[in-house]
């Protein structure tokens, strides 16, 4: 006798007739609501576009102000960096649907401490990450495709399957000479997965900023206490949330313990340091990526 022996009984549990009508009804109702939400979303998007135009304008002002300050106080004029899309690539044919916006940092007159070498290095690294990721993703998909047909799959069953490859970036903070940049690479086919890379730079000094630089010597304790507090706060306010090692999962040995010097972070537009945890690292997959603003960056 085995545990599986009970399976048939379990599978034969009578399903109430009203179940499928109830589920269908809920879905229909939600679809209608979703259509309404979409309209609101589009309105919001338009507003966001207007706001974005405003940001560009503000950035221009900041830049010239920094230029003025730089000219007055520093022997080295400039160090005004801009983030540009150096490669924009879109493909939607064959095996891949690719949407790629690759950023690079442009150093207006190569006037940082290393004569532009620092930003070139960062740019080269970004290029490498993007290329490696794309190549890996393609190799993975090729392998999958090969296995599919090798095991007797037909063109008909394959039905033009595609892999999504997405490269995108987001300038999180930019106020000369500090720049915080997020690079995202994602691929999707059978499973979707995403990687994020962060660049927190002082372009003028030509160095990558560390948590310690932004939060002081006690940065580990500051971050840990704040993250712990926020997790508990979130759990107290929303029962659908879940973190490894907290609440019902208290006895598991996984979950958030401590940050260290290699923990990912960025600086948000309010100048706050935001700690980032990839999906699955401190919470179940459905929770996605988790971010915690832990305090003001000392810039």
């Amino acid at each position, binding site marked *: *006798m085995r545990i599986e022996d009970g399976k048939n009984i379990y599978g034969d549990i009578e399903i109430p007739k009203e*179940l499928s009508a109830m589920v269908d009804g809920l879905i229909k109702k939600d679809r209608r609501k979703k259509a309404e939400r979409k309209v609101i979303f589009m309105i919001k998007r338009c507003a966001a576009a207007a706001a974005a135009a405003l940001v560009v304008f503000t950035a221009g002002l900041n830049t010239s102000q920094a230029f003025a300050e730089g000219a007055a106080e520093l022997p080295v004029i400039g160090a005004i960096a801009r983030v540009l899309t150096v490669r924009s690539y879109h493909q939607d044919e064959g095996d891949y649907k690719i949407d790629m916006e690759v950023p690079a940092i442009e150093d207006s007159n190569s006037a940082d401490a290393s004569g532009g070498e620092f930003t070139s290095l960062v740019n080269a690294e970004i290029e490498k990450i993007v290329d490696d990721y794309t190549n890996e993703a393609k190799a993975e998909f090729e392998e999958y495709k090969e296995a599919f047909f090798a095991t007797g799959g037909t063109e008909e069953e394959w039905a033009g399957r595609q892999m999504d490859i997405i490269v995108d970036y987001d300038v999180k903070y930019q106020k000369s000479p500090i720049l915080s940049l997020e690079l995202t690479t994602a691929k999707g086919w059978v*499973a979707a997965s995403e990687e994020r890379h962060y660049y927190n730079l002082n372009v003028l000094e030509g160095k990558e900023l560390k948590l310690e630089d932004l939060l002081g010597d006690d940065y580990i304790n500051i971050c840990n206490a704040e993250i712990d507090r926020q997790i508990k706060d979130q759990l107290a306010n929303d029962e659908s949330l879940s973190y490894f090692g907290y609440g019902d999962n208290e006895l598991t040995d996984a979950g958030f313990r401590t940050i260290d010097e290699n923990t990912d972070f960025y600086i948000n537009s309010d100048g706050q340091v935001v700690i980032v945890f990839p999906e699955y690292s401190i919470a179940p997959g459905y929770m996605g990526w988790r971010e915690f603003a832990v305090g003001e960056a000392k810039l």
Partner: protein
Amino acid sequence: MKDRKYELVVSCITENQNSLYRLALSYAKEREGALDIVQNTVLKALKSYTGLRDEAAVRSWLFRILVNEAVRYIDKNKNEIPSSDEAFPEPEYREKAFENDAGEVYEAVMGLMPELRTIVILRYYEELSLSEIAEATGLNLNTVKTRLYTAHRRLKEKLEEVEI
């Protein structure tokens, strides 16, 4: 892309509604309660589908919401839930089709404490992998293994001849 995810969640709900109901019934022990739990689960899943990151894990994600809703339901209705296995299983089945020991195993599984029972149901009756169970329950893999092992031991004590 957003819509694709929504459609994925919708079809996962539609395809798994019976499984959701059965698992809900293992908590609520009666059909009205189980239907309530499924209803709340569907509502929550449709509302929070954007939170689904790993599309391959949509089924575990759905079970996870259901387990949360079931636990919440139990907390709310502590005093009203039948303590015996009245609804589980329905006796007429057992006499008809399961005169053998399968009924005994089944009853023993349903008699386990919820933390162990859900893991056994997901593993053997819904055939989820251990890592899917970890996702569905929010536990880490080792805890799932430990609990599954504990469940085996409990069942073995209850039904001496059970093979594991």
